[in-house]
């Protein structure tokens, strides 16, 4: 048995002995091998077929699969939204709590980049943390060289360039996180930019990243954010996060809220506890109202 099994399949086919069962096993193994090969081929055909092995390779239809896979990593993470209003920016993050043993407020997903700049992230948290460090260094160097706050467009361009650099080489993988940058100052007003793993950055009035980004975008589009103030917007942001949170799949979550605007004198801060509680209460009440109104219709 040992001898026959050790030899390659082609040899087995030629051997005719009492090991008919072995023969069949071999055939089966062969066909299994073939089946597996076909399966693998089919799977890879759908995805990349060897064009997805490194970021330095294009596919025949002009895609860089590694970057697209990085964006899928972002879609696996929970939602983060940022909205710009007439006098500031508000960030809201749905932070899923995987265990009751976690300390409240740990693993923050909103970072302070400079006094006047905040960053909300979605995707691989470790990648996001290292990018936050990069952004901090950029902002700090700018301040040291030029003597004033870094303009947000410039910061977002610089960090986007850095993220893009990691999509060019096979020796590194792209960053698996998207992030939203927001700032406020008296002269330029409120600004909001989003950077994704491909290294593009766009300016927005409102944007969402993460698993429920489509649903969140729909809700954001309903808002008249250009006429709202930060205080009104905080409640709406909390409400959107509560709406897009999936009670069935993900159980407990912590809402992280932060803002920067005229109300904070241009400093990026976490929303104070009392305002946050008020916003969460408003969000929960609105959800109940909607549930009630659904029942009435029925």
């Amino acid at each position, binding site marked *: 048995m040992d001898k026959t099994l050790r030899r390659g399949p082609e040899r087995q086919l030629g051997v005719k002995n009492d090991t008919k069962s072995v023969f069949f096993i071999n055939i089966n193994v062969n066909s299994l091998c073939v089946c597996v090969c076909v399966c693998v081929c089919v799977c890879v055909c759908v995805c990349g077929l060897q064009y997805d092995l490194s970021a330095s390779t294009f596919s025949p239809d002009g895609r860089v699969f590694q970057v697209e896979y990085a964006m899928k990593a972002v879609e696996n993470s929970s939602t983060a939204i940022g909205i710009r209003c007439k006098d500031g920016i508000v960030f809201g993050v749905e932070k899923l709590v995987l265990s009751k043993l976690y300390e409240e407020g740990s693993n923050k997903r909103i970072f302070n980049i400079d006094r006047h700049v905040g960053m909300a992230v979605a995707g691989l948290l470790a990648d996001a943390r290292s990018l936050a460090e990069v952004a901090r260094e950029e902002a700090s160097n700018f301040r*040291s*060289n*030029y*003597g*004033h706050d870094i*303009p947000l*467009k*410039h910061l977002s*361009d610089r960090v986007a360039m850095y993220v893009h650099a990691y999509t060019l080489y096979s020796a590194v993988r792209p960053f698996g996180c998207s992030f939203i940058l927001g700032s406020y100052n008296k*002269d330029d007003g409120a600004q909001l930019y989003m950077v994704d793993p491909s290294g593009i950055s766009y300016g927005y009035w409102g944007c969402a990243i993460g698993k429920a980004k489509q649903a969140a975008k729909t809700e954001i589009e309903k808002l008249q954010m250009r006429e709202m103030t930060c205080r009104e917007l905080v409640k709406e942001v909390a409400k959107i996060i509560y709406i897009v949170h999936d009670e069935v799949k993900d159980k407990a979550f912590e809402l992280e809220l932060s803002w920067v605007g005229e109300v904070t004198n241009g400093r990026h801060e976490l929303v104070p506890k009392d305002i946050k509680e008020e916003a969460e209460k408003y969000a929960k009440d609105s959800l109940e109202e909607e549930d009630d109104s659904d029942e009435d219709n029925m």
Partner: protein
Amino acid sequence: MLGEAEPQWLSEEVKTGTTIIAIEFNGGVVLGSDSRVSAGESVVNRVMNKLSPLHDKIYCALSGSAADAQTIAEMVNYQLDVHSMEIGEDPLVRSAATLVKNISYKYKEELSAHLIVAGWDRRGGGQVFATLKGLLTRQPFAVGGSGSSYVYGFVDAEYRKGMNKKECQQFVVNTLSLAMNRDGSSGGVAYLVTIDEHGTEEKVILGNDLPTFFDQ
């Protein structure tokens, strides 16, 4: 061979002895300088323009060692060009002054130049910054160079807040004239640069057109 000394201007460092002044008004700044470059006791250049552009609406006034000051001005001019392209808009006067300050401070042992940076930008209007020996401070007006010692009294007494453009220009010309009269290292003609929202205006006032005071 004995007793034959080398001409002084070969051995002395070339300094822009100088009087320089910059003052801000509501909506812009006025910069002024004399035009004498001396090497010891010889005048090497009697018509040098010591007001050097750093950007369209930001100028600096040079004093101290001529080479050091010019080099700093050229370096900062280049850096501001790159910076304004990166941020996509005109640079702030504070950025220009910070760049000058960073060089002056980092090389403060090797350099001996004092630049006064003044200009107009969208955010802060007219601004004047002094960067002596690596400090950075914003002031309503600033004087510098060897001739400035002779006119501190005059500027302190005559400066008033809220002067308009014409009054500022007259103030600058008067100050330069007095300093050039008393300081051996300042003289020649007076250069004036006025910067405001609408543009930059350069003017030369020849020696005989300068205002005269007691004993002139």
